[in-house]
């Protein structure tokens, strides 16, 4: 065996209208974590899908332990000791969590599934990851974070030699990331190689041994995180410069102006009919304010904003919108009252995969372009074009199907969708999930632009720096209840965590 466990050489892949990969290489050593970085649409996921047999590359070779290997299907990849956590989650919603974990490799004999062993194994696996989920619960009832942990558990359990993690932490909060890293460290010691894709700089520098950077479908270079000779560490700035090809000094655009004292949204003692969900949520949202909502997985933040937007029922409590009583009936009603919700799960509740970018951008604002029910295509095109350009959506044309965009670019289209509705209150649930550093900055800029125009924003974020960097005020939730508020200036990670784990000990991730 040579120096590398995996060598990918001169991989090229073209899609209609895009050269996604152009002579890319990737060399991974056994027992290391290899970070793969690049902007949205750089081709990271495509490269991994070529390795996992989902795409057939147009050119190039893959060597495993020095042996040339052809991989044409996921099955073959798995047989070759490769496991993958996909960027887009693929739960089977009406089946149990444990069946999802063991999909495609159910334990048993001669085609008969051994349920007991499947249950026990899943339980053990989850205990290991400190995940408090009933293996028999339906996957569709779990939050994005739990689904993500579920997929990680699945990959970990495959006893693979190479584990590909394509943005595994996009819906996880720090606590779960910690568990994940524990597992990675343990497996790394056993000689497992990881390919780790993430847009979270901090994670990359913490966990990885080497970094390969890609830009626009080409290979930029590979660097060790700690230089063996000089002992020097790779810096944020260096990586970003290699990724975007230019300097970036600030992570957050400067905030000018202050929230006004005018209250646009007042929520009082709002309770879910479900006992385990949000209870007694009260807060005020001021005009031109960014209210951040922090908390761990299972804090019911998403459930709460979904209820606000009429997607879930509210049992009791009062909501005042601009001083008038607001009863959240349906998303359509919420929209007509000037609310917008960017949902957390892009794939399930965001994109219309088989529709072009154009339709995906204008869909929430369709009525605006219609005259007697007939759509004005020119106006739709023009608006979609402006908005997508503003957000720098990387695509050959607006007619491209959104499912063919990279994950980050899909997210940008969704943001464009809600900006088009010109709503007064933007509720953003993990707005920068899966978005690269450069694009994040752009999105922060757009958020501030909206604020300057007199809008208000509620932002759920599991990324501490983002939460602290962007919010005017942070509300922290824990297990469905609001546990505290922090004003700008008082933010520290510890304080937020203290509130977020107020009831800790009961259960961490249920």
């Amino acid at each position, binding site marked *: 065996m040579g120096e590398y466990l995996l060598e990918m050489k001169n991989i090229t892949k073209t899609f209609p209208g895009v050269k996604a990969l152009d002579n890319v290489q990737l060399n991974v050593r056994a027992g290391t974590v290899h970070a793969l970085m690049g902007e949205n649409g750089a081709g990271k996921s495509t490269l991994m899908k070529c390795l996992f047999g*989902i795409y057939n590359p147009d050119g190039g070779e893959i060597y495993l332990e020095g042996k040339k290997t052809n991989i044409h*299907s*996921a*099955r073959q*990849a*798995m047989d070759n000791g490769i496991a*993958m956590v*996909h960027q887009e989650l*693929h*739960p*089977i*919603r*009406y*089946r149990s969590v444990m*069946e*999802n974990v063991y*999909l*495609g*490799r*159910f334990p*048993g004999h001669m*085609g*008969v*599934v051994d*349920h007991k062993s499947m249950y026990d194994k899943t339980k053990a696996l989850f205990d290991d990851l400190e995940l408090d989920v009933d293996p028999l619960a339906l996957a569709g009832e779990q939050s994005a974070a739990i689904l993500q942990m579920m997929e990680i558990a699945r990959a970990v359990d495959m006893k693979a030699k190479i584990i590909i993690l394509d943005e595994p932490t996009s819906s996880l909060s720090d606590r779960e990331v910690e568990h994940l890293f524990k597992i990675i460290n343990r497996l790394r010691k056993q000689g497992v190689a990881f390919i780790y894709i993430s847009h979270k700089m901090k994670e990359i520098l913490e966990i990885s041994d080497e970094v390969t950077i890609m830009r626009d479908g080409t290979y930029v270079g590979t660097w060790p995180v700690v230089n063996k000779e000089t002992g020097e560490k790779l810096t944020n700035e260096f990586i970003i410069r290699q990724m975007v090809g230019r300097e970036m000094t600030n992570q957050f655009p400067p905030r000018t102006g202050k929230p006004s004292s005018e209250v646009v949204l007042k929520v009082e003692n709002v309770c879910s009919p*479900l006992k385990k969900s949000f209870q007694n949520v009260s807060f005020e949202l001021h005009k031109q304010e960014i209210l951040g909502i922090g908390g761990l997985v299972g804090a019911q933040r998403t459930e709460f904003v979904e209820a606000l937007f009429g*997607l*879930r*029922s509210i049992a009791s409590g009062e909501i005042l919108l601009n001083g008038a009583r607001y009863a959240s009936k349906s998303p359509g009603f919420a929209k007509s009252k000037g609310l917008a919700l960017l949902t957390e799960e892009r794939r399930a509740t965001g994109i219309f995969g088989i529709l072009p970018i154009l339709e995906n951008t204008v869909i929430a604002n369709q009525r605006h372009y219609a005259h007697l029910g007939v759509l004005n295509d020119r106006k739709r095109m023009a608006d979609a074009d402006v908005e997508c350009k503003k957000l720098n959506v990387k695509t050959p044309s607006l007619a491209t199907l959104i499912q063919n965009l990279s994950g980050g670019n899909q997210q940008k289209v969704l943001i464009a969708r809600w900006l088009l509705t010109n709503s007064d209150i933007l509720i953003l649930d993990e707005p920068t999930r899966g978005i690269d550093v450069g694009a994040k900055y752009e999105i922060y800029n757009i958020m501030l632009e909206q604020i300057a125009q007199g809008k208000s924003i509620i932002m759920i974020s599991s990324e501490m720096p983002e939460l602290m960097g962007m919010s005017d005020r942070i509300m922290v939730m824990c297990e469905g209840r609001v546990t505290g508020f922090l004003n700008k200036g008082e933010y520290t990670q510890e304080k937020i965590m203290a509130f977020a784990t107020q009831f800790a000990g009961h259960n961490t991730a249920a």
Partner: protein
Amino acid sequence: MAENVTTRSRSKLFTVSGIVILIIGIVLYFMKDPMGLRRIYDLPNFLIIIGLCSILSGFMSKGKPDDVLELSGKAFGEFLTNNAILLAMLVLVIVICILQPRFMQIRVALDILTQSSTKLIMALGICFALLIAGTDLSAGRMVGLAAVVSASMMQTATYANRFFPDLPQVSVWIPIVAAIIACMIFGALNGFLVAKFEMHPFIATLATQVIIYGACSLYFDMPPNNSQPIGGIRPDFAQIGQMRLFSGIYQGFPGISILIPISLVICAIIWFILNKTVFGKNVYAIGGNREAAVVAGINVFRNIMFIFILASFLYGIAGVLEAARTAGATNNYGNGYETDAIAACVVGGVSMSGGIGKVGGIVMGVLIFTVIQYGLQFINVSPMWQQVIKGVIIAVAVAIDLTKYRKK
């Protein structure tokens, strides 16, 4: 907490109510004759059976902890929606029993089960296609094909109008296997079209349906038969569909039709396949999220092929049983059976969008349709009204079922 006071374990509930029903049944049984309660027919026997079943299921669910029944208004409402169609059927049965007490006979119940048998086999076949978010329009025509093929080889030597005048008296198994294989060939065609070209099953099976009917009609039209209904079926073959077990164990007992155990065995096998085998899990996975199945390394092509071949195997059995039961066949046998089977499945909670469905539900769905049809005939409701009622049931049942999945 308050709710703990009002909860009671399910097993206790079943056992207690079972015992109560059992006692009532036994009391009625012994009072029937002396009190002159002739008009209740077999009601005591039914009560005894129901009571025993209830006690049994009480014991069966004893091992399961956590399974508590909340006796609050909300839980009651949930119970109503979850079992709405079953309850509606119970109400209907009670109404029919009051209007026409003759309905309360073991003989009637056995009749209903017999009539359900082939329908159940059909529904169990078609549920696979539904589980992968497809459908199977060729099911009914496969029944016709299997019926014609098997009947054509099973005529008595002395019958004037033989399909194959010179055919010796072959073993019954040969035509059965031939008929089922004929169906499986077309099942494989269905599977190939769906799996290979990712054709929607609606289209693929529509094409096959037409082909099968054409092919079957050609066969049926071969000289010397020339499209005459096939008759003169050999008694040993007819027995396969007409035999009655245990008839006359007591006076007036009509016997259990052989179709009932046959369909029960198939039902058990399908339940096992869907719940306990890798193939079954894969079916749910492909239906629930095809992409996830692909990414998980499941061989979707092979599974889909197998789904349609297995389904056609069941249709083949249904067709053979139909030919045997009616001791005859024409090329129009089975026409439209697929719609009944699909209706029974969806009423039983199988989702047309794939991934959801249970064998228990399908059995329920089939029974509901037969009970209602039989019951309405029993109280002389006109066939036209029966149609209207059947349609309403499909719509209402599915509507209630879907409320379970709506807004959380």
